[in-house]
C-alpha cells in the first residue's frame, strides 16, 4: 500500500500550520494519522501537502482550569484514558477513550484528529456531545469556541474550514454526584461502534444522552434526555431512543436492528447513571 506522493511539513506552531494550510493547494492536517494514513494508503485521498501538528506543544496538555477540564487536541486517546484529571472528573471519557480501537491506535490517535474526521461510528463525538464539551478552533481569522452540538454538522462533516486547526477541547466539570457512562456495542472487526451510548446524569436529574454509530453523525437524543430529565424510568426513557433520525445500516447491523440496539444501550446507560 503506497500513498500518492505528497509534501510533508511539520508545523512548530498553530500559526505556522495555518499558514501552510492557506498556501497549500490541497492540504490536510496530520494528527495521529489513524484516520488519514489508512485513507492515503488505500489511495482514497490524495492531498498535496500534509501538515503535521503533533509536535506543537500548545496542542498538548490535560488539566483543569476554573471548573473546566481542558484537553489538548494532540493528546492521544491513551493519554486521556489514563489521565488522573479525566478519571477524577469525567470518568466516562476515560472509559470511552479506552474503548477506541486497540492499544496501538490509542497510543497514537488523537482526540483532535478523531473529531475533525467525524466518523459516524467513532466514539469521541458522542462522548463530547454528552459531556457538553466545547471545541476551540484556531483559524485564519482568529480563535473561536463552539459547542460540540454546533461542531458536528453531518456525515464526516464539521464546521471546520480547511485552514482551521482544533486546539483544545474544553469540558465543564459537572456538579458533585454526577454520574456518567459509555456503553459500546462493537463491530468485532473494525472495533468501531455499532452503537455507542454516552450518558451523563447530574444530581438535579438533568440528563444528556448521545449516540455514536447509529446515524449519519453523532447526535444528542433529546427525546431520551427530556424523558429521563423529567424522571421517567430508564426503560421508559430508552424506549424513545433513536426515533426520527436516519439510521445507518450495513452488512453487520441493519437499520431496525441498530435502532433496537440503540434502545437497549440507552437503557443500559441510563441504568448505570441512575
Amino acid at each position, binding site marked *: 500500500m503506497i500513498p500518492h*506522493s505528497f509534501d510533508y511539513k511539520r508545523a512548530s506552531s498553530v500559526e505556522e500550520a495555518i499558514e501552510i494550510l492557506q498556501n497549500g493547494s490541497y492540504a490536510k492536517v496530520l494528527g495521529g494519522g*489513524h484516520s488519514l494514513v489508512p485513507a492515503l494508503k*488505500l489511495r482514497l485521498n490524495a492531498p498535496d501537502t500534509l501538515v503535521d501538528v503533533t509536535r506543537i506543544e500548545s496542542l498538548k496538555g490535560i488539566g483543569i482550569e476554573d471548573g473546566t477540564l481542558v484537553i489538548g487536541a494532540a493528546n492521544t486517546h491513551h493519554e486521556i484514558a489514563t489521565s488522573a484529571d479525566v478519571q477524577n472528573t469525567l470518568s466516562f471519557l476515560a472509559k470511552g477513550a479506552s474503548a477506541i480501537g486497540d492499544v496501538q491506535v490509542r*497510543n497514537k490517535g488523537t482526540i483532535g484528529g478523531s473529531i475533525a474526521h467525524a466518523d459516524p461510528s467513532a466514539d469521541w463525538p458522542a462522548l463530547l456531545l454528552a459531556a457538553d464539551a466545547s471545541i476551540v478552533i484556531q483559524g485564519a481569522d482568529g480563535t473561536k469556541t463552539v459547542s460540540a452540538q454546533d461542531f458536528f454538522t453531518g456525515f464526516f462533516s464539521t464546521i471546520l474550514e480547511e485552514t482551521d486547526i482544533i486546539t483544545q477541547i474544553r469540558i465543564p466539570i459537572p456538579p458533585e454526584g454526577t454520574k456518567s457512562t459509555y456503553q459500546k456495542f462493537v463491530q468485532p472487526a473494525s472495533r468501531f461502534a455499532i452503537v455507542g451510548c454516552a450518558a451523563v446524569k447530574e444530581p438535579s436529574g438533568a440528563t444528556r444522552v448521545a449516540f455514536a454509530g447509529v446515524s449519519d453523525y453523532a447526535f444528542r437524543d433529546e427525546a431520551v434526555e427530556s424523558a429521563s430529565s423529567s424522571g421517567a424510568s430508564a426503560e421508559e426513557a430508552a424506549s424513545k431512543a433513536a426515533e426520527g433520525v436516519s439510521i445507518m445500516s450495513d452488512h453487520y447491523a441493519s437499520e431496525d436492528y441498530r435502532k433496537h440496539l440503540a434502545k437497549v444501550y440507552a437503557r443500559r446507560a441510563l441504568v448505570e447513571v441512575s
Partner: protein
Amino acid sequence: MEIKISVNVNGKDYVREVEPRTLLVHFLRDTLRLTGTHIGCDTSSCGACTIHVDGVAVKSCTMLAVQADGCTVTTIEGLAQGAELHPLQEGFKECHGLQCGFCTPGMIMTAADLLAKNPSPSESEIRHGLEGNFCRCTGYHNIVKAVQYAAEKMSNEVSA
C-alpha cells in the same frame, strides 16, 4: 521531494533521506533491512507491524517515516539484550506462543507495551491488551500463557 530524517533504531542512529509518503514500516524493512517487522494488512487492523516509538507500541504501517524523525524506535530485532532473550521472547518459546511466526514480532511488541503499563495483567486484561493483533495460528491460547509467563518472570526479576 525527499526529506532528511534522523532516527534511533534499536540503539543505533540513522540519518536517511525519505520520501514523505514512505511508511515507517517500509523504511524499517526496505531501507534499514530490519525485516522482523511484518505487514499483514492495509487497514491498521492486524498489528503485525507493531513496533515501539518513544517507548509505546504503534502500528508502523500507519505512521510515516518522516513522523519518526528524532524518535527512538525499537523493533523486534532490538528487544533482546545481546544474547539474552527478553522474557516475552522466552515466554513465547516456552509456551509455544507461535506457530508460523509471522504475527509474532508484532504480538511480542504489543505485549511488551502491555506489561510496561500493567506488570501483572489478568487473563482478560491480556486478551484485551492484544486486541489489535491478529494471530491466525495459535487461537491465542498459548499467547496468553506466554504473556503470563513473561509477567511472572519480569516480576520475579524486579523483586529479586
